């Protein structure tokens, strides 16, 4: 809430807090920076100069810059109003943010929604995707041969990932690239006569993968195929974590590992109660961000999301989680089964929201399209 502060510095700190609430990365350090900068540059001839000065100190990204001027105006306007009326009325902004909080579904509400009343939205979702592509790809049925092809491709991806060379070096015993630095060090102890050369080679890059697969109703047609993809991937590459979601997120690494595909499918059906349910991409990714991201999105990680982007949740939750994932992961790959058809455009709100945070976007509905993905991951 914006209240009147009597000193300039208190006002500036309050403004910093105001920005922090709006996702600006501002801490104590930035607050002291602003005070320092303002002090350094005084006296101010025009208010614009002060605004420019604060903008230069407090913004850290193009997004920050874009919103700054409006927020700046908004803040001082609110402040003026607070001073003029001298009533402790709740300013509009805080009101809306608190009501937004109230709107966020509690776990109980989510569960109700999940198990009890299936809303119209869910049915809508189902008709949408089924109607648009059913005739094109009959994916539910898989021949033995195609399954084997999936395994082969997944193995290729796993290999490509495992063999990625890092740009850094590690020392090796056998003859490889000559390592001058350690050769000299090693031979100095023998009086400087070079007798024992040391070698080095490129390190292997440690790439881990997080797979997040949509198994909601709208993905029904593809999810069987995609689950096989997940199963094959999980069993052929070590550093991988698989998740599925429809209305909430489930970690399924354990269910897929070291079991026959039939057992794995059975286990999945038990683990995931809302299979073929509604879609809450935002909420599910948010769960991922809060519970798993800090453990899994470290080092070199590729996040692969398999979904049609048909979301019934709130767009801002999705955007926030996608931004978080994009920032933490090395690469964000979104595989969309619907994107295969020529007339497809990212019209769906969920997809539109997520688009700016995706590095590789590709269709994935059959074996052929997966192969194309392999090529792109290699690069």
């Amino acid at each position, binding site marked *: 809430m914006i209240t009147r502060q009597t000193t300039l510095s208190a006002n500036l700190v309050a403004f910093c807090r105001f920005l922090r609430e709006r996702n600006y*990365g501002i801490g104590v*350090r930035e607050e002291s920076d602003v005070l320092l900068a303002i002090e350094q540059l005084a006296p101010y001839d025009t208010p614009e100069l002060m605004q420019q*000065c604060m903008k230069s100190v407090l*913004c*850290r*990204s193009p997004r920050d810059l874009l919103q700054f001027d409006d927020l700046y105006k908004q803040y001082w306007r609110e402040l003026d109003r607070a001073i003029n009326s001298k009533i402790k009325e709740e300013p509009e902004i805080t009101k809306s943010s608190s009501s937004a909080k109230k709107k966020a579904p509690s776990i109980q509400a989510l569960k109700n929604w999940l198990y009890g009343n299936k809303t119209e939205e869910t049915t809508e979702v189902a008709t949408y995707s089924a109607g648009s592509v059913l005739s094109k790809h009959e994916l539910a049925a898989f021949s033995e041969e195609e399954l084997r092809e999936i395994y082969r491709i997944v193995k290729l991806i796993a290999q490509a990932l495992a063999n990625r060379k890092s*740009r*850094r070096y590690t020392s090796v015993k056998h003859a490889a690239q000559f390592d001058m630095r350690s050769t000299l060090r090693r031979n*100095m102890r023998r*009086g400087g006569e070079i007798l024992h050369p040391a070698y080095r080679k490129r390190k292997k890059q440690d790439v881990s993968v997080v797979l997040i697969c949509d198994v909601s109703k709208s993905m029904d047609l593809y999810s069987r195929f995609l689950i096989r993809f997940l199963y094959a991937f999980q069993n052929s590459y070590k550093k991988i974590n698989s998740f599925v979601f429809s209305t909430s997120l489930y970690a399924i690494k354990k269910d897929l590992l070291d079991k026959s595909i039939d057992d794995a499918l059975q286990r999945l059906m038990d683990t995931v109660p809302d299979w073929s349910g509604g879609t809450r991409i935002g909420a599910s990714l948010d769960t991922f961000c809060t519970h798993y991201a800090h453990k899994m999105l470290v080092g070199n990680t590729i996040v692969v999301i398999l979904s049609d982007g048909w979301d019934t949740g709130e767009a801002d939750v999705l955007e926030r989680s996608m931004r978080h994932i994009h920032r933490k992961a090395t690469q964000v790959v979104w595989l969309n089964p619907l994107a295969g058809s020529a007339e497809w455009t990212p019209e769906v709100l969920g997809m539109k929201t997520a688009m700016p945070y995706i590095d590789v976007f590709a269709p994935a509905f059959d074996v052929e399209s997966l192969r194309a993905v392999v090529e792109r991951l290699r690069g």
Partner: protein
Amino acid sequence: MRKALKEIENMLTAQGYISEPSIVMSIHLAKTLSRPLLVEGPAGVGKTEIAKVMAKALDTDLIRLQCYEGLDASQALYEWNYQRQLLYLKMDEQGSGSLSDKEATIFSDRFLLKRPLLQAITHHKSPVLLIDEVDRADEEFESFLLEVLSDWQISIPEIGTISATHIPQVVITSNRVRELSEALRRRCFYLWIDYPTFDKELQIVRAKVPDIDAKLGEQICKFMAAVRQMKLDKVPGVAETLDWAMALSALHIDQLDKKIVEETLGIVLKDWQDIRQTQNALSDLFEQVGVTSKLA
């Protein structure tokens, strides 16, 4: 305050750099609060140029670290001159010095190759350190950079810790190939440079190509502004505008026409698809720019 800003603006203008308030303010703040300046923006808008101009304006040296994938400490900090060390050892084979003497000699300043970061902190006077295209280096390098940028000291196992005699003025540029870490962003002041407005671009052209025909300069800038509105793969920057202006001026051309544009489009656009797309839209572009095509 305005005086201080005006001074910087004048310094920049004197070096032929046409600035805008946000650039002047950022440079001023980075200088007075001695913070690194992180400059982002599309390719060819003069990000690197800022560092060069700053060095000239502050009358100091520019030390440049060009980042690339796989850049590591030995290329950024220091490396021992191994060939020289080996030669020295060989020549000194019959020497009577003890082993520790020998070691002290070959791991001394004489055999040290200073790379940009070490150069910058040992420089005799505070230089401008340009860390160019930091997004091309990997994240490990970025974290390493954080350490150097906050402590201003470098440890060399054989010699010890070297602390900065003068803290350099750092300019970091990024083309946003990869999102930079929050930690690095928070250590820097941030500056976003976009494609210039028509007026600014015209000023730049006039400053850099002084003998250009006034009308041609205007036409070029209008044309460039229109081209940037098209959805091209590689949007041309100011660098391309200047190249084009210089080329046309060297050809003693005083007005754009269809034939000339078609013949010289390769200076502006570097992608075949883009060139074709632009050629197809040339009449529209000319209409926007207000050029009457001779051939039409």
